[in-house]
């Protein structure tokens, strides 16, 4: 009996030795330089005046925020320089407690004065200082710094989602002393409290950062430094990732590009995917005949098979999710049942196309009617979207000329109303109706409404939802707005939302793919395995 027990024990012990131990969460390893790619150059280094990821991707790691999005739990907002915060009951006063002992890269200490100066620049820019997102903070009356560790925001009216707005990845915290001396200094220089110091930038080539040893978060950053390679050509970018010269790129690749990478180094890369807070829309010039006729507009949106397109285009472009004005799958999105009732979102394409043809006849549009679809000359994903739309409209007897124009002309034409239909896009860092809806307000209210229509119902709906605190009620109003824009009036329509696909070498740890490429890279959290 004892011998049997011993044998059993022995067998168990042997097996225990052979079976690998569950590793669980590996401890982050310090060291290494992360090399990643950015496909565009930063126009300037000032986060408050730029809107492009091209500025964020190399510059962001040098700065801290008051509060920021937690990339591991997006869209949760956590404190960065703020230790904690409270709100008054009426929602009009937000008080933030600032960490002590935070140092700038030049050794000086951060106080609430710096944060106040930063937000004053963002919300109340003086002189020729440009603050691009100023409009989001219209509800702020004043920013105060009563003592070195406290910042207070006083609002004119309660603003739902105010914390998220403060957490904008563009709100780099700057040094008050520098801003007083020269408020435009930050356009060409770097001085922050972020996890990395600035080392060098060779225009057109690369950007280098090194660990800031006095970073307030002990133990972080794990990386010794980082290096950004500026590579505009996609094939060069893919080749770089395949060869391991760079570990990843933080914007996104198409599924075909992904399969290309996987085929070469499949076992050595992980893939992060997420719906993307970016989309392609088509704006219709309601001032031009026959697009002033709602029947024609509805026919145009009905003809597009979005579900089929999602499947077909997702192979060659990074588009996929089908949705309305708000992020598909997000807190504000319509349910699929509601969505499929909108024009162009049904599953029965043949019926939709028949109805579209009928509407066109009714409106007096002849067979083979020709118009121009203007588009940007960017290959991804504008070109495939444009080509797809042209093909879809061919199937209801419309002869569409696809005209891809370069950016300068594109914006000029769009603004001047010099187009029939134009492919547009929208990208943001938060899924908030206050940010997504203004595009569709009347043209005399919203300067970015290039469709040229006036619709007071929409204007009223927008104001109402903006003041509604109850989420469910607010969602109802938002959906009403959506139905009017996309279905009843068909002023504009959404083609497809984008899909973020990020292949990255397995050696990169601590990375989590979020819905937008503005809150990434969160370099303080990343580390490199052996």
């Amino acid at each position: 009996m004892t011998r049997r027990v011993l044998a059993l024990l022995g067998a168990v012990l042997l097996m225990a030795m052979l079976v690998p131990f569950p590793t669980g969460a590996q401890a982050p390893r310090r060291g290494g330089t992360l090399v990643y790619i950015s496909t565009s150059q930063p126009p300037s280094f000032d986060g408050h005046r730029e809107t492009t990821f091209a500025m964020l991707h190399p510059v962001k790691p040098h700065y801290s925020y008051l509060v920021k999005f937690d990339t591991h739990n997006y869209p949760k907002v956590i404190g960065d320089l703020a230790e904690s915060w409270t709100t008054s009951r009426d929602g009009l006063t937000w008080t933030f407690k600032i960490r002590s002992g935070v140092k700038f890269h030049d050794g000086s200490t951060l106080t609430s004065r710096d944060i106040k100066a930063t937000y004053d620049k963002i919300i109340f820019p003086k002189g020729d200082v440009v603050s691009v997102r100023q409009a989001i903070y219209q509800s702020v009356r004043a920013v105060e710094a009563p003592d070195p560790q406290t910042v207070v925001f006083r609002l004119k009216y309660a603003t739902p989602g105010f914390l998220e707005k403060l957490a904008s990845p563009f709100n780099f915290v700057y040094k008050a002393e520098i801003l007083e001396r020269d408020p435009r200094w930050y356009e060409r220089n770097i001085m922050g409290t972020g996890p990395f110091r600035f080392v060098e930038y060779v225009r057109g080539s690369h950007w280098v950062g090194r660990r800031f040893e006095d970073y307030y978060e002990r133990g972080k950053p794990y990386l010794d430094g980082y290096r950004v390679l500026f590579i505009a050509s996609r094939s060069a970018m893919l080749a770089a990732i395949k060869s391991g010269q760079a570990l990843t790129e933080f914007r996104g690749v198409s599924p075909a590009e992904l399969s290309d990478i996987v085929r070469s180094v499949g076992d050595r890369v992980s893939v992060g995917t997420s719906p993307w807070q970016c989309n392609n829309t088509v704006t219709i010039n309601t001032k031009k005949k026959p697009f002033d006729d709602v029947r024609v507009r509805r026919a145009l949106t009905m003809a597009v098979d979005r579900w089929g397109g999602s499947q077909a285009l997702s192979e060659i472009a990074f588009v996929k999710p089908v949705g309305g004005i708000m992020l598909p799958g997000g807190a504000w999105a319509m349910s699929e049942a509601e969505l499929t009732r909108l024009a162009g979102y049904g599953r029965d394409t043949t019926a939709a196309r028949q109805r579209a043809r009928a509407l066109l006849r009714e409106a007096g549009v002849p067979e083979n009617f020709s118009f121009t679809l203007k588009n940007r000359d960017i290959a991804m994903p504008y070109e495939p979207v444009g080509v797809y739309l042209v093909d879809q409209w061919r199937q209801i007897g419309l002869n569409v000329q696809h005209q891809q124009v370069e950016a300068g002309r594109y914006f000029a034409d769009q603004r001047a109303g010099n187009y029939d239909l134009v492919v547009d896009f929208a990208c943001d860092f938060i899924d908030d109706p206050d940010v997504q809806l203004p595009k569709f307000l009347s043209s005399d209210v919203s300067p970015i409404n290039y469709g040229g229509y006036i619709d007071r119902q929409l204007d009223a709906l927008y104001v109402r939802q903006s003041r509604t605190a109850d989420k469910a009620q607010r969602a109802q109003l938002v959906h009403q707005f959506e139905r009017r824009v996309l279905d009843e009036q068909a002023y504009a329509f959404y083609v497809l939302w984008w899909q973020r696909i990020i292949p990255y070498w397995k050696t990169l740890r601590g990375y989590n793919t979020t819905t937008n490429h503005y809150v990434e890279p969160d370099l303080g959290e990343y580390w490199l395995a052996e």
Partner: protein
Amino acid sequence: MTRYVVARLALIVPTLLTVAVLIFILVRIVPGDIVELRLVSGGSFVTPGVIEAERERLGLNKPIWDQFVEWMTGIVRLDLGVSMWSGNPITQEIGIRLPLSLQLAVMASLIATAIAIPLGTLAALHRGRWIDHLVQVISVAGLAVPSFWLGILIILVLLGVFGYLPPLTFTPLMQDPRANLAQLIWPALAVGYRYSAVTTRMTRSALLEVLREDYVRTAWAKGLARQVILRRHALRNALLPVVTVIGLEFAFLIGGLVVTEQVFNLNGVGKLIVEAIAQRDYTLIQGLMLLVALGYVLVNFIVDLLYAWLDPRITYQ
């Protein structure tokens, strides 16, 4: 001779001035606005007030005449101004990219010359025979192959067959010759092949012309060794048009390699030109075009000088 030199030099200034004026006018005809491009292309919502303020700051709202005077006086003071997009001095922007473009141009020229002169000579000497035909086919093909397609094929072979990717960032030659050459040899080959085609044809025809000349025939009749004739008489005189072609093509290479730079992802002057035009960066476009024209004109001038030195008869025209 000096009068010739001075006369040629005197032509440069009016040409460049005309370029400066024309460029100033042309950039402002193009529709599109740098501020919009900069602020709106991110995709988010920017108020027109912000856009206006920025235009004001860049000096775009100043009267055209003022902008023109600023530009012209700047040229006189050799100050090309500041890029509207990045705020950096234009000389700095160009300075970063010029070494790469220059090196690429030199390498391509060397490759081209090394191929062209021997091949062209061979073809001329064996005129009508199979080697002549072969050389002609090679060089005519070189003119027909789009150099950017050749570049794509090179990358395809390197990556697909050898799994090799050339370095993606530029390291100066002095700093790390291996990395530097590993990056630039491939575009130099792609460009050099086409370049050599032009030069081969010119070498061949120039040599043929010279070989027909009376004095060569005389030397031949006198019984001088072929090599001697070649070296002492024929080649030297055939060099004239060949040098012209090499010079002209070289001038074209700085800034003309727009597409090749895209294919190989090179941070060169051609790429900067395309970016500047796409971004409607008026000051940068103006400065770049002026420099490209200057380069062209200077190279032409040097070629003219060389021409005159090699064949003094020219100066009497």
